[in-house]
């Protein structure tokens, strides 16, 4: 399956979450999406990522819209609390659905294939490069961090030190990483130039991810869903 196909499902999903105004329907959608995430690879990481973002957001919304500070500290009148909280819950469910949907789409696009697809796409090479850069850099940064940690350990930096020394350790490890990333900017530009990057408008891509009939069908389905949801909204 083409790595881009998954992302085509996001716009109709966005529209759908906006269209649904019933918390139960949204919750059902969320459950379906979370199950989809859970069924895919790396579900532990992806679900944790989802929870890490959604739980604090829930707390924040609850705090702001429940107006608990008002009633507790100032004794304000909060008769409209249920309505406010219901609206906040809808918002939370929408964000949660989108985040889960993005995780499903990402599952279909492993970094190496996504990068390849970006470079093979009709996007200008420079845009493809910028969009792919976090994927490319994260691999290198992780590798680099391991090297820096090793070199600094040899000089007495203890990655497992107790807290007071931890700040110092953090600086000793982050410093070289930042210096390297910035110094690397020049080298990387030279390397790209040396490989004739952007010298001709149309580059070839070996083993470009194929856009199969199945992708086309899914894309058509996504478009149809988009039209359907939008239409149903306009109809009312």
């Amino acid at each position, binding site marked *: 399956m083409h790595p881009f196909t998954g992302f085509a499902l996001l716009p109709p999903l966005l529209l759908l979450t906006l269209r649904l105004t019933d918390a139960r329907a949204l919750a059902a959608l969320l459950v379906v999406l979370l199950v989809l995430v859970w069924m895919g690879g790396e579900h532990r990481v992806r679900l944790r990522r989802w929870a890490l973002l959604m739980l604090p957001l829930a707390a924040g919304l609850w705090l702001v819209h429940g107006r608990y500070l008002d009633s507790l500290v100032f004794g304000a009148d909060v008769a409209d609390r249920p309505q406010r909280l219901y609206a906040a819950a809808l918002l939370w469910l929408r964000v949660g659905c989108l985040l889960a949907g993005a995780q499903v789409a990402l599952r279909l696009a492993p970094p190496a294939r996504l990068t390849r697809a970006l470079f093979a796409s009709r996007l200008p090479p420079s845009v493809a490069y910028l969009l792919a850069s976090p994927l490319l850099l994260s691999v290198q940064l992780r590798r680099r961090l391991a090297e820096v940690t090793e070199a*600094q350990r040899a000089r*007495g930096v203890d990655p497992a030190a107790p807290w007071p020394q931890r700040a*110092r350790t953090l600086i000793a490890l982050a*410093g070289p990483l930042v210096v390297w990333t910035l110094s690397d900017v020049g080298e990387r530009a030279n390397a790209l130039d040396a490989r004739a990057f952007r010298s001709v408008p149309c580059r070839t891509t070996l083993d470009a991810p194929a856009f199969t009939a199945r992708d086309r069908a899914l894309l058509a389905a996504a478009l149809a869903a988009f039209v359907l949801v939008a239409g149903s909204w306009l109809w009312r």
Partner: protein
Amino acid sequence: MAEPVLSFEQVGYGWDGAPPLLASLSLTVAAGECVALVGANGAGKSTLLRLACGLLAPSDGRVSAGGLDTRLARPSALARVAGMMFQEAERQLCCGRVRDEVAFAPRLGGLSATEVKRRTARALEATALASHADAHPFDLNAGERRLLTLAALIAQDVPLMLLDEPTRDFDAVQLALFEAWLAREKSAGRAILLISHDYDFVARNCPRVLHLAGGGVIADGPPEQVLHDPALQGDSPGAAPTLPALCRAIGLPPTTDAACFDAAWRVACERRAALSKSRGEA
């Protein structure tokens, strides 16, 4: 005999899922020794250095550096005993100025400001980098950058120094500087274990050479004897170390010392001149 600075006892090591890289390897390095480690690419030389300073823990056996078991000691304690110069200088540089880079390890070790300053000044002087003290490490050329990692090691002031390909980036002048430093440290009793592919350099500076192959030390002895192994030499006729080879080719007593060779060659030339002169008279 005094306690060795570095000792490997029946050490085994292997990366996950791969056949063991090192197996039941034993060796000791004493204070004041300068030992070279040679062997093919991938023989495990760099791994051995990492084991020696505790960056890797052996899967079998025991490694002790300066009396500390590397498996148990904390990095801060090990850093007072063993220091390492990595093969790629860029990977260990972490500060924005040469001066701070040299002072990094002493500062981390919690030394007083005056002591840090003293050590930094001494290290910068020994490596002829004093005039670059305020430069950015990435503005130095490759040879100077390598000298900077040496200066950082000097300031760390450890009894055991592990150097991975220290001479690669040096030009003739920097190499002479480095060899002078090496000679001083040897006589001051520091233990040095280094990896080098420059067998002439090894023969000049390291009285003892270890040949690492097949997961263990297959030869341990003076450079001429160990380096003679065909596995270490290319197919070129100028077998390194080149000076003893030259001596043998022209019938002089083998030596790795330039001054000895020069003296012997001068004598040989004079004798021949006298001989041809007497022949001419006859």
